[in-house]
């Protein structure tokens, strides 16, 4: 418990927050890396997911991609990029994190758009909507809950995993954990752990609220759902429950 009280003391010292390379700097770095990684993943995954989902093709590809990404340790990819010609630092970290953010966004976008009822689309076409209107005004609102869940899952995962970059010379709040551990100063380490965990929980909370606010139709809290529909073998599961990393 002594270590925990030291962590609280550390966190209560304003100088630890404001000094150069202090908590504020590291947190901003952490958030910056994560935001760029998630945005990059969205730019790649959303169009592909929409295209595959509306065409109802490529289910096998999406399943394989999400399964393989689960098997590859983030630490391995972070390290591999760091020793590649990209060089270690925030660029390698961002690329590695973006790679891991793609599968959840892609899978959920795919499942969301593919799940739109064919009769609903037909009715929209029959009402004289163009292809773009069907996409934007019918399919998007129906698929939105799953799409936002995918982005939320990816973002929380990225914020959580960004801490690992510190093990291989990267920046962000994970550095406090690594530093505290290296100096046998468990107070600093626990302070870092509290901050990383807090940031991840905050991300979950903010994005859950955000997705709840933008979701049309009946609103439900996103945490408390369990999918009970039996699934066929080749149908990708939306990664609503995610995988901790």
């Amino acid at each position, binding site marked *: *418990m002594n*270590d*925990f009280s030291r962590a609280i003391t550390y966190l209560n010292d304003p100088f630890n927050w404001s000094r150069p390379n202090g908590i504020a700097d590291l947190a901003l770095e952490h958030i910056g890396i994560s935001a760029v990684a998630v945005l990059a993943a969205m730019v790649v995954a959303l169009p592909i997911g929409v295209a595959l989902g509306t065409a109802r093709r490529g289910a096998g590809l999406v399943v394989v991609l999400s*399964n393989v990404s*689960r*098997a*590859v*340790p*983030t*630490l*391995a*990819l972070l*390290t*591999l990029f*760091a*020793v*590649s*010609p990209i*060089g270690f630092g925030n660029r390698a970290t961002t690329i590695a994190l973006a790679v891991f953010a793609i599968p959840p966004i892609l899978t959920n976008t795919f499942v969301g758009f593919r799940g739109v009822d064919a009769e609903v689309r037909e009715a929209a076409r029959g009402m004289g909507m163009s292809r773009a209107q069907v996409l934007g005004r019918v399919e998007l609102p129906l698929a939105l809950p799953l799409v936002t869940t995918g982005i939320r899952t990816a973002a*929380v995962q990225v*914020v*959580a*995993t960004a*801490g*690992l970059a510190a*093990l*291989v*010379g990267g920046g962000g709040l*994970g550095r406090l*954990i*690594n530093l*505290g*551990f290296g100096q046998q100063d*468990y107070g600093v*380490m*626990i302070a*870092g*752990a*509290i901050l*990383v*965990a807090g940031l*991840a*929980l905050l991300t*979950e909370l903010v994005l859950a609220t955000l997705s709840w606010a933008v979701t049309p139709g009946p609103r439900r809290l996103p*945490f*408390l*759902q*369990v*999918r*009970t*529909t*039996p699934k066929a*073998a080749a149908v990708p599961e939306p990664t609503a*429950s*995610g*995988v*901790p*990393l």
Partner: protein
Amino acid sequence: MTSLGARPSLDAVSDPAVGLLAVDEAPNPWFDPSYVTDNWDSILTYTGEHVRLTVLAVVIGAVIALPLALLARRSRYLSAPVLGLSTIVYTIPSLALFALLVPFTGLSSNTVLIGLVAYSLVILVRNFLAGLQGVPADVREAARGMGLSAAQTFWRVDLPLALPAFMAGLRIATVSTVALTTVGVLVGHGGLGQLITGGFAANFYRAEIVTGAVGCVLLALLADVLLAGAERALTPWARAVRS
């Protein structure tokens, strides 16, 4: 890809003032079979630790998750806290969780094991609960009408019907636990993750890093194939439907 064999080095001709170490010019290939053969013993040791941690974490997780899922199925008032708590647990980053456990369990592999159990538990509870809720209510009612006790209903009705979902959960939990174990390098018990950070610390020795990374992926794939085989063997009735 031609330049990947050698480490990117500073241009010695254009800037002789920058000291160039011999180690920077040494070849640093991505794949090196001689590394694997020379270090086979330590690779096996790390693999053994990796497998031990993964198997223990998934088994303990499953043993805890099943009663929780059975309890959570009983009512919405029980399932909501279980699911809400599990969301919170898996939002906590593994690095942070391991770091928080260090003051209690020290630098032992127990630190890693407890963390891994927490995560596999979270995955398994959700999948077990989904499997149990997928059992049609009228089937359970029929079982009760035939005079089956609660235990009999579980073993002879719930379990066979929910088995595919259970196995899917076990596969996800196992594969992600294999990947997560690498984070145990924080306390020096990361299994094959030790090779990844070990190679990074040893002057970015790529062969060691790649060995650790590939080993992790192969281990995860092997576990997944084994569990898929077990699922096939345990559900002979599903095979007839599929073919």
